[in-house]
């Protein structure tokens, strides 16, 4: 089989700090896949996502980091807009920092209303709740307009009743996604493929349709 590959890791060693987290990692990801990374904390999900980011960064990739990496002193608008800095001139970016253009505000507001956050358009991020911050980080990733998404627990802080909506919007906005999840149910519902990690080893690598329910229990 000769599927087109987006990313191909062969016998890859990934170190984070002095100790190697992954040894001999083999991983292929093709365009259009929705890959969920499962595993307990410390199993290597975040390390793998970081490595994928380093590899994929040159072709442009949207990220939702675990700690959101939002700029607290800036408004929700500015944080979301910063996802798209590359599409504007430096002058326009500086202008929008000091005095946001109405057209840009409308575009961001549209996206925020889908995430039920439009009321917070000009609120500094420092004043938001955890869930609102995470939705801001999701909006920034969507606004960036890349085809590949790397997300680390992208709905962990979002209200339960909003989590599906947010995750759906996030995944639909990207052709290919790799996202770490702690909620197995949500992962099975949204992913096309599951990669299960444990202590830096790939325990499971299966299409969701072919996954047997007892296989997952080996992870936890």
């Amino acid at each position, binding site marked *: 089989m000769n599927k087109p590959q987006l990313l191909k890791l062969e016998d890859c060693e990934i170190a984070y700090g002095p100790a190697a987290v992954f040894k001999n990692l083999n991983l292929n990801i093709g365009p259009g896949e929705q890959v969920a990374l499962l595993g307990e904390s410390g199993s290597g999900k975040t390390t793998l996502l970081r490595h994928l980011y380093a590899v994929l960064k040159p072709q*442009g990739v949207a990220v939702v980091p675990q700690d959101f*990496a939002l700029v607290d002193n800036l408004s929700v608008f500015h944080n979301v807009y910063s996802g798209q800095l590359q599409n504007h001139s*430096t002058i326009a970016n500086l202008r929008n920092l000091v005095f946001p253009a109405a057209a840009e505000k409308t575009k961001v507001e549209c996206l925020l209303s889908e995430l039920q956050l439009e009321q917070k358009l000009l609120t500094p991020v420092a004043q938001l709740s955890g869930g609102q911050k995470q939705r801001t980080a999701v909006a920034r990733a969507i606004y960036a307009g890349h085809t590949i998404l790397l997300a680390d627990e992208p709905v962990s802080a979002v209200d339960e009743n909003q989590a599906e909506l947010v995750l759906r919007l996030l995944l639909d906005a990207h052709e290919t996604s790799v996202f770490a999840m702690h909620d197995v149910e949500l992962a099975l519902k949204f992913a096309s493929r599951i990669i299960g990690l444990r202590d830096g080893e790939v325990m499971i690598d299966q299409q969701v349709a072919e996954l047997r329910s007892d296989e997952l229990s080996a992870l936890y």
Partner: protein
Amino acid sequence: MRFPASIQISLVFVLLALACLVIADIEVFTLNPWQELARMAEGILSPSLSGVDNLLYTLAQTIAFALSGVALSCCAGFVLALIYQNAFVRVFSAMIRSVHELFWALIFLQMFGIHPLTGVLAIALPFTGIFAKVFAEILEENRHPAMDLVGSGSSFLSRFSYTHFMQALPHLRSYTSYRFECGLRSSTVLGFLGIPTLGYYLHGAFLQGDYSQVAAVLLLFYALVATLRYWMRPVLLPLYLLATPFLLGDWASLPVNSFWRFITVDIVPAPLRNNASFADFMAWLQTLLFEQALPGLFNTLVLGQIALVGTALLALLWFPLVSEKFLSSVGRKLGHVFLVIVRSTPEYILAFVFLLLWGPSLLPAIVALALHNGALIAHLVGAASNQITLRIDHARHINLYSYEVLPQVFRQFLAFLFYRWEIIIRESAILGLLGIHTLGFFVIAAMEELRFDRALVLIACTALLNIAIDSLSRRIRVSLNINRSINHKRAE
């Protein structure tokens, strides 16, 4: 028993200061200091502005020099901070900030005379070096992860302004407003050299012994500093900046000739100017170094060492005045007023007052430096002591101080103190302008003899001393592992 490194270093510094105290000249020369003190007290009780013409204009000029100097240096320093990894930029910044603004003023006075540029550059140049260093440190400490996550492919400036810059902005802003307060002090003190600011009248009043006028002008200066946050509003800033160039005086009369003469003739070492041999030049340099630079250096170090330990003692004595561990809110308010007044008074002016009282020994300079810097560090340590949590059954009074609070703030106290060391040395050199035999004394003497070549070599020696102290202080801070506990807002 072995003491911890921080105590060992402190003991070494205290012993050195005691040794310095033995050799230092701290005699009281005046016959009747009490009489002069009584006249001063009388003046303070009857402030009068009768001798000052154009008071409002002078106030505006004092602000204008501070504002233009700080605005220029803030912008230039910020640009330098962005490229501060560059070794050349670091050395350049260290060099311009190692020369005190009063020395810069003396140099520019020779170049331009009493011209707006003299006052503006005298403040802007050293402040640029300070801004570059502190801004670089603030930016370093406030790096934001989003810089590498968002807008990849956009310009550095775009990403920087939306991430690192916004993260650092509150710190940059509060440091700049503190620097403006320093700028007001510098601008005032520059008046002692003839720049038309409040200090000009202060100097005149001091020389005439008109202490009523001294008191009035000083009160005006305190009022200016105390009301800073009411009149220095971001919305008004553009207005102030627009008005500034018109308030600084007459720009038209830039004496180009004296400028050229200064940089092509005046500062060229005399033997070279007269086509003497290289041996003559070396002899000239040797005389200068051994008869002026070394004695000046020695006295500067002696003064600096005693003043540093004096600063430390006063800071440790005074910080409970503003600490909630020791005083109720009413007591702390009074403590704050006391510390603000002591630290707002420029040390140059304090030294001038004590000099009038006690005559020209190291004593007035020691007391002035210790008071000003002690009040400043007491304020910082007091704030640090409010951060610590005590057990419910904590000790009280002197035991609370010595067994619980002091051990917990001691490392931070040392960090502030060593950060301040370079500044104390810089000021020790400059107080020579008042007649104390530190480096500044030889600088002003050379200038009065119109030997600018000598003055410049001596200023360069001062700069090297400050750079050496700065790097020694950094090494001590690193070895004690206290470098990170600094609050930039007030330390530099």
